[in-house]
C-alpha cells in the first residue's frame, strides 16, 4: 500500500535477541503457538509445511569435535522497514491485494488473513522464510479449542500467516491506557509473548526510537547485527553475539570480506 502522507512514524517497535543467552529451549516457539492460536499436526516434522511464527535455528561453527560450537538463532518475522526505511519491506510491496501492510504508527508489518487469498508472492519475497502458508484446515482435537486465545483470530486454510509482534497485545495495552486516560504505553506494558516467555531473558522488546527503552541502546551496541543486512531489508530484529563466527553466518560474505568492515562501509554509506 502507498505510504500515506498523513502517517507519521511515531514508534518503531523492534527486538534484540542476545544469542549468547539463547539456550535453544523453544519456549518462545511454544509461547507463540499458545498466544497466537498456531495450529499443530499429528506429524509436524515436515518443517517446510509447519506453521511457526518464530523458529529457532541451530547453527554450528563447522569445526570438528571437540572444537564444535553451536548457536541458536530465533527467527521471528523481521518486521523489515524495507529499502530506504520507508515501509517497502520485501513482502508488503509485492502483495497484490494489500493483505499485508506496513503499520506506520508502530513499524509492524501486518498480515490480514481474511484479505489474503493465498497467492504466496510474499513468501517468495521474504528472504527469512518468516511467512507460512496454511496448507491444511486447522484442527484442534478433543477439547483443545477451549484454549484458543480470543485476541487472535484463527486462520483458515489457504492463507499466509506470520509473526505480528503480538500486535493484539499492543491493542490491549492501548485499551487499558485509554481507560486510564493515558496516551503513552510503558515499556513493559507491551511485550511480545516470546519476549515474555524467554526463560533466560535473551529477548528484549521495545521501541527502537525511544531512548528509554532497553532496545534503543542494545540495538546500537557493538555486538549488534541483523540477519542478511546486505539485502537492504532493514529488519527491526537485532541480534547480539560475542562470537565472530556467528556474525559471519548471519549474512553472506565474499571470500576476503570481513563482517566488521562490510558493516562499517554500510554505515558510512548510509550516513552520506
Amino acid at each position, binding site marked *: *500500500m*502507498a505510504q500515506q502522507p498523513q502517517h507519521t512514524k511515531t514508534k518503531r517497535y523492534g527486538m534484540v535477541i542476545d544469542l549468547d543467552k539463547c539456550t535453544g529451549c523453544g519456549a518462545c516457539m511454544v509461547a507463540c503457538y499458545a498466544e497466537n492460536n498456531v495450529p499443530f499436526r499429528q506429524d509436524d516434522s*515436515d518443517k*517446510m*509445511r509447519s506453521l511457526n511464527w518464530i523458529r529457532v*535455528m541451530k*547453527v554450528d561453527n563447522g569445526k570438528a569435535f571437540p572444537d564444535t560450537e553451536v548457536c541458536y538463532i530465533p527467527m521471528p518475522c523481521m518486521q523489515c522497514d524495507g*529499502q530506504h526505511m520507508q515501509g*517497502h519491506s*520485501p513482502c508488503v*510491496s*509485492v*502483495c*497484490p*491485494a*494489500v*493483505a499485508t501492510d506496513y503499520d506506520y504508527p508502530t513499524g509492524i508489518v501486518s498480515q490480514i488473513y481474511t*484479505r*489474503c*487469498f*493465498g*497467492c*504466496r*508472492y*510474499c*513468501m*517468495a*519475497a*521474504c*528472504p*527469512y*522464510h518468516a*511467512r*507460512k*502458508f*496454511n*496448507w*491444511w*484446515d486447522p484442527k484442534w482435537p478433543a477439547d483443545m479449542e477451549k484454549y484458543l486465545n480470543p485476541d487472535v483470530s484463527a486462520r*483458515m*486454510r*489457504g*492463507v*499466509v500467516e506470520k509473526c505480528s509482534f503480538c500486535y493484539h497485545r499492543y491493542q490491549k495495552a492501548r485499551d487499558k491506557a485509554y481507560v486510564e486516560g493515558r496516551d503513552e504505553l510503558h515499556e513493559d506494558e507491551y511485550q511480545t509473548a516470546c519476549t515474555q516467555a524467554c526463560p533466560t531473558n535473551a529477548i528484549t522488546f521495545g521501541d527502537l526510537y525511544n531512548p528509554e527503552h532497553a532496545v534503543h541502546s542494545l540495538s546500537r551496541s557493538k555486538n549488534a547485527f541483523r*540477519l*542478511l543486512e*546486505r*539485502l*537492504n*531489508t532493514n529488519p527491526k530484529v537485532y541480534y547480539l553475539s560475542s562470537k565472530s563466527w556467528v556474525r*559471519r*553466518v*548471519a*549474512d*553472506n*560474505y*565474499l*571470500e576476503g*570480506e570481513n563482517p566488521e568492515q*562490510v558493516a562499517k562501509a554500510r554505515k558510512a554509506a548510509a550516513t552520506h
Partner: protein
Amino acid sequence: MTTPAIPEGVKRCSTRQFTLWLAVVGAVLLWGVYAMFLIWYKGLNQTGMNDAYGFALWIWADLAVIALGGGAFFSGFLTYIIGKKELKSIINYAVIIGFICYSSALLILALDIGQPLRGWFIFWHANVHSMLTEVAFCLSCYFAVLTIEFIPLVLENPKLDRIPFLHHLSHNMHEVMAVFAATGVFLSFFHQGSLGGVAGVLYGRPFAFREGLLIWPWTFFLFTWSAAAVGPCFTMLVTWLTEKITQKKLVRPEAFELLAKISGWMLLTYMIAKIADTWYWAAVTAPARGFSLMEFYSNNPIYGIWILIAELVICGIVPALILITPKWRENKNLLVTAAILAVLGVCINRWVMVLQVMAAPLLPFQDWYMYMPTWQEVATTILPVAYGAILISLAYRYLPVFPHEKELNPGQ
C-alpha cells in the same frame, strides 16, 4: 466428408476418427479436471509445494505458457500495426494458440491461489505497486482482447455465419481489429514485462533481483523481449506439428520465412541483452549482497551451472544464429530444431526465474530447498495441453483457420 459445419472446400477426417481422437485427449483432460477438483476441494496440501516453494511448477507453467503465447501479440503487432501481409496466413492460428495459452494461464492461476473464492480481491483491493496486480490486470484484459480476436474466426464457422447478426458482428469486428490488436500489444507489453518483474523486484532474493529502469527491473524488459522472440517460434512449431499430423500444407512458406527471420533477430538481440544482464548481475548486483555467481549454481546437481549454459548458449545463441542465417532457416529441419531450442530456452529461463529462485539458500547455514511436484500438480499442468489439443482440433475442423489451406492443397 462434408457437413455444413465444416468450412467450405477443405477436407477433414471422418467423424469416427475425430471422436476417437477427442476421446483419447479427453481422457487426459478428465484426469486433469479430477486433479483440479481435488485441489479445489482439499486445498493446496495436494501439491508438493511448501513454505520454501511458494511458487513452483504452476507458476513456471504460467510464465512459460504466457511467454509461448506471446506469438499472438507479436504476430498481431506485425500483422495489424506494421502491416506484414505475409503473416495473414498464420495470424488466425497465432491467435488461437495465444488464446489457449492465456486461458490455461488463468485456469492455473485460479488453481494456484489458496482461496480461489477470494481471487477477485486482486482486482477489487488492488495494490498497484505489486507486479502480480499488474500481471492479473493485464493478463485478464489481454485475455479479453484475445477472445475478441478469436470471436470473428469462430463466427466464420459456416453454421454461425448464417445468422445475420453474427455475420455482421464478425465483419464489424474485423474492421476495427487493428484497434484491438494495438490495445493487445500495449497490454501484452506490460504483462509480459510484469511477469519478468515478479521475480526481478524481489530484492530479498539475490538470485532473482535485478536493478533496472525507474520502477522496472531489467527482467521486465527481458521477459517482453524474449516472449516476442520466442512466441513466434512456438507458433511456428505448433503449425509445423499440425501440418505433420494433418499431412497438409497449411501456411504459406513466406509466413514461416518472415516469422523465422524476425524471431531470429529478436532472439539474438535478446540474448545479447540477457548476457549483459547476467554479467552485470553476477559482477555487480549479487556480489554487493555477498554472493558470488558460483554460490548460485554449485553444490547442487539439479540447479548446476549447466542450466545457465543451456539457457544462454545451447537454447539461446545457437537457435538465434540458425534463425538469422537465411540458408539455415530455409532448411525446415534446422528451422524446427532452432524453434524447439528457442522454446526450451525460454522455458528454462522461466524455470530458473521461478524454481531456482526458491531453491537457492539465502543464509549461509541454510541448504538448497528441494521440491517434487505431486501427480495432482502434474495432471493439472498437463490439463492445458489436452485442452489446447482439443481446442485446436475443433478449431481446425470447424473454422477457417488457415485462409490459404485450399490454395496450398489443390489436390484434396
